[in-house]
């Protein structure tokens, strides 16, 4: 990803995140979060993580955002607009993140000065093709100089990460059951 695109998308991302905080209207906050996440997906794609970028848009900007807006509309929050900021909370909200940022900047200042991290290493696709069975889609794409991101993630998902994905399935099932139980009307 060229540097200029990285700076543009980072600026949009941080601007969207700031607008989440400073908008009084929750719907406007939700839409600012959408802006922030779409820019984040662009940065992911710039880092050669195509599937993660697409998932970020599909899951966050699609599903999660609709859920948020749905709940905001359902709860009818117009009278909750008097969201006055308290001086103590504002002071804490400014000081704690600034201390964190200064700490981070000073750590980054003294570390990773070597060549390896100043530039992303080149991907050696033809080299990597040798590790996959000949004639498979992954090997063919890699030798053609393309990065088959989705195929590679699928490959790892069903080999090395077979157990975690089944645990995730159980987690999603229990979350679904939990939602149904929580939103059931309690009959007395």
């Amino acid at each position, binding site marked *: *990803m060229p540097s200029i695109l*990285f700076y543009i998308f980072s600026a949009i*991302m*941080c601007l969207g*995140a*700031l607008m*989440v*905080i400073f908008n009084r209207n*929750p719907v406007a*906050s*939700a839409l600012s*979060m959408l802006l*922030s996440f779409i820019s*984040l997906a662009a*940065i*992911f794609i710039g*880092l*050669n*993580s195509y*599937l*993660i970028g697409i998932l*970020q848009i599909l*899951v*966050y900007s699609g599903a*999660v955002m609709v*859920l*948020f807006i749905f*709940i*905001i509309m359902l*709860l009818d929050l117009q009278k*909750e607009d008097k*969201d006055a900021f308290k001086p103590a909370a504002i002071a*804490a*909200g400014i000081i704690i*993140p600034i201390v*964190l*940022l200064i700490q*981070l900047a000073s750590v980054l200042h003294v570390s*990773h000065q070597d060549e390896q991290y*100043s*530039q*992303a290493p080149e*991907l*050696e*696709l033809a*080299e*990597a093709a040798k590790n996959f069975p000949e004639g498979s889609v992954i090997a063919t794409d890699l030798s053609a100089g393309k990065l088959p991101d989705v195929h590679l*993630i699928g490959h*790892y*998902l069903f080999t*090395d*990460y077979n157990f*975690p994905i089944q645990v*995730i399935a159980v*987690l*999603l099932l229990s*979350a679904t059951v939990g*939602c149904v139980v*929580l*939103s059931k009307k309690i009959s007395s």
Partner: protein
Amino acid sequence: MPSLNEYLFISGLLFCIGLTGVIVRKNIIVIFMCLELMLAAASLTMVAFTRFNTVQGLPDYDGQMLVFFVITVAAAEVAVGLAVIVALYRARQTINTDELTSLKG
């Protein structure tokens, strides 16, 4: 191409903005959105590390799998969290954190 430090700094900046929101805002739904921002910042860190640490010529896919699972768990968390908020609103008619003090001793 930007350096790893720039990616890490931007991710830290996003995390700090999310943290500010969690501390400053009173509306539970907006607090929840800021939590999502903090999770996304952590994902950005991991994706940057996968790209800068190549394994046999490819990006290190272990980090991307971790991000994949983080996104899945975050989606489940949002669903359950919003169900809790709806139940809370039904019981108390408010989602302002200043008025939800029944756990205060």
